[in-house]
């Protein structure tokens, strides 16, 4: 592989610079794309010949073939090290593409189908007594109220727990708490719903359903996420800032309130927003705790309450007389939910950018 030893000194320097097993050649700039397209065409042809052509299969096998192709090609022209580099680059790019594909597909499908159900009526009227039409105003309001209450419950508890665990907690109690928070993040959401239902049933009798129960069920899901993210953020507040405050004769609680929390503010808000986005689309616990209702109810302490996820589920499960219109509304509800989550994410990013502090 390497040039013979009796070659000129200049040549041996060049072979050293080309790297171990280097061949000295270079593939053209379009080589990876060419290899990938070639692989796709090759797979499509093979599949067509076998008679079971599908796009997904072509992409999946195409990626594998492309990795092998670029490796062989590069190995012949450029040498071993470059070939490995190209193969791994191809593998990573393919993995990224494959993982993005379902996301983009879902988004595309939801937008395409969702816009058909969107109308003025969808946002401004509820579904009370509606036979053919009706909207999702009650579900949108319900989603915002239930989620809002859940945030109001979870954020103080979550952040204070994180402060305890990061600033005060020591020893076995702290370790136990960390363990239980980890366990809590894995609770199936229906269990949270049943917990909230059982809790309220104890006091208010069987069959009780109202908005705040849903909020409490969601809090059970949200609190551990808030604790986890807040703890991570508080952990990266450098200790020298705390010490600087202590050295000024500042009590510990004031150091936390005036120095640690402001420094971590952007990260805390981001964590809360992401946790909110995580729970806003919950269906199962709300089906149990807030029920299904077709009229607008903005009072979380009385009566059932609709929300978007349950609404979408219900429009699909028991469509009205005009089935297609119901399905369209279900997709529109899904689109609205995604839009709300996206707005939350944008807000989180803006807050982060505005308030982030340079921490060295």
């Amino acid at each position, binding site marked *: 592989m390497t040039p013979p030893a009796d070659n000129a000194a200049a040549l041996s320097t060049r072979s050293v610079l080309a790297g171990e097993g280097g061949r000295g050649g270079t593939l053209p700039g379009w080589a990876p794309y060419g290899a990938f397209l070639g692989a796709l065409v090759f797979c499509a042809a093979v599949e067509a010949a076998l008679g079971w052509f599908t796009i997904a299969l072509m992409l999946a096998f195409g990626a594998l073939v492309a990795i092998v192709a670029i490796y062989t090609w590069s190995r012949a022209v450029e040498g071993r090290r470059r070939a490995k580099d190209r193969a791994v680059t191809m593998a990573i790019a393919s993995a990224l593409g494959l993982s993005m594909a379902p996301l983009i597909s879902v988004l595309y499908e939801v937008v395409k189908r969702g816009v058909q159900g969107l109308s003025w009526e969808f946002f401004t009227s509820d579904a009370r007594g509606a036979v053919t039409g009706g909207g999702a105003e009650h579900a949108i309001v319900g989603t915002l109220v239930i989620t809002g209450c859940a945030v109001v419950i979870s954020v103080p508890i979550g952040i204070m727990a994180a402060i305890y665990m990061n600033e005060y907690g*020591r020893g076995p109690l702290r370790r136990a708490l960390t363990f239980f928070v980890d366990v809590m993040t894995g609770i199936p959401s229906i269990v949270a719903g049943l917990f909230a239902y059982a809790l309220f049933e104890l006091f208010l009798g069987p069959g009780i359903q109202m908005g705040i129960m849903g909020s409490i069920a969601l809090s059970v899901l949200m609190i551990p996420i808030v604790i986890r993210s807040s703890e991570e953020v508080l952990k990266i507040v*450098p200790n*020298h*800032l705390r*010490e*600087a*405050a*202590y*050295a*000024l*004769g*500042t*009590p510990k609680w*004031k*150091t936390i309130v*005036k*120095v640690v929390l*402001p*420094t971590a*503010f952007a990260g805390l808000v981001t964590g809360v927003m992401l946790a909110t986005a995580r729970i806003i689309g919950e269906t199962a616990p709300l089906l149990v705790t807030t029920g299904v209702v077709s009229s607008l109810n903005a009072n979380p302490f009385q009566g059932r309450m609709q929300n978007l996820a349950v609404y979408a589920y219900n429009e699909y499960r028991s469509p009205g007389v005009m089935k297609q219109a119901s399905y369209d509304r279900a997709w529109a509800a899904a689109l609205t939910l995604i839009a709300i989550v996206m707005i939350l994410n944008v807000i989180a990013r803006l807050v982060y950018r505005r308030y982030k*502090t*340079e*921490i*060295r």
Partner: protein
Amino acid sequence: MEGRKLRNMFGPQARSQAEEGRNTMSQAGPVTETSNQAGEAALARRAKTIETKEVNLYYGAFQAVEGVSMTIEPNKVTALIGSSGCGKTTFLRSLNRMHELTPGATVKGDIELDGEDIYGAAVDPVAVRRLIGMVFQQPNPFPTMSIYDNVAAGLHFNSGKISKSEKDAIVEKSLRGAHLWDEVKDRLDRPGSSLSGGQQQRLCIARATAVSPEVLLMDEPCSALDPVATLAIEDLIGELKKEYTIAIVTHNMQQAARASDNTAFFNLEESGKPGRLIEIGPTQEIFTKPKQQATEDYVSGRFG
């Protein structure tokens, strides 16, 4: 919030107003004049003495410092020198009860401030730290706060409500005292982290002096700075001793020789053993005719 108020006060549209305010301020009280008009040799005030007796410091079961007895004289600069890991910083941190903030860290022995035991049962560690301030190795201004708020932070955190004009006066005095006022007076509402390293360290000194402590502890305050900034801080230390008792940990022997009145040399027999105070005396003596061989080896650079 502070920032906005300040912009009103020091912004271009309100400059003349602000200058008026400042003039009346400096007429009203002697506070703003200390560093400029106080005579070179005159003491602005007598600060307090720290005296330690047989101080032993531990991290859990590990003993880091053993049997240190020394006096840190008022209105003088005491330098603590010695090789890395010999317990200088640990000892310094025990002087304002920062040592015990490390989990598992404990203190034995007596540390007295003007005869009062700062580790007494009735003593609030927070109150100790108000009297004995500290400047750290890395400049650490609060990143969320403006220059002004950084200096005023101690006042804010500790003494509840004080009037705006009073606060302005203290901030200006502290910044002047830290030789920083002229560099930052037009941008007090900018974040503290926008300053250079040397400026940040002087900001931290201003922040520490704004709560008017008795003693300033400095833990290698210049080790992250370039020579010019270092010289500026050393000059400043010379000024500050008129008002404060100063203890400074340094690895820089020239710095100890230039900036201190007394020098304490710490050493440890071997790693894993606790650090001990080998010798303390006037800096001149420690560097020219030390009593201990180890001290001479260290200051002459012959140390392993």
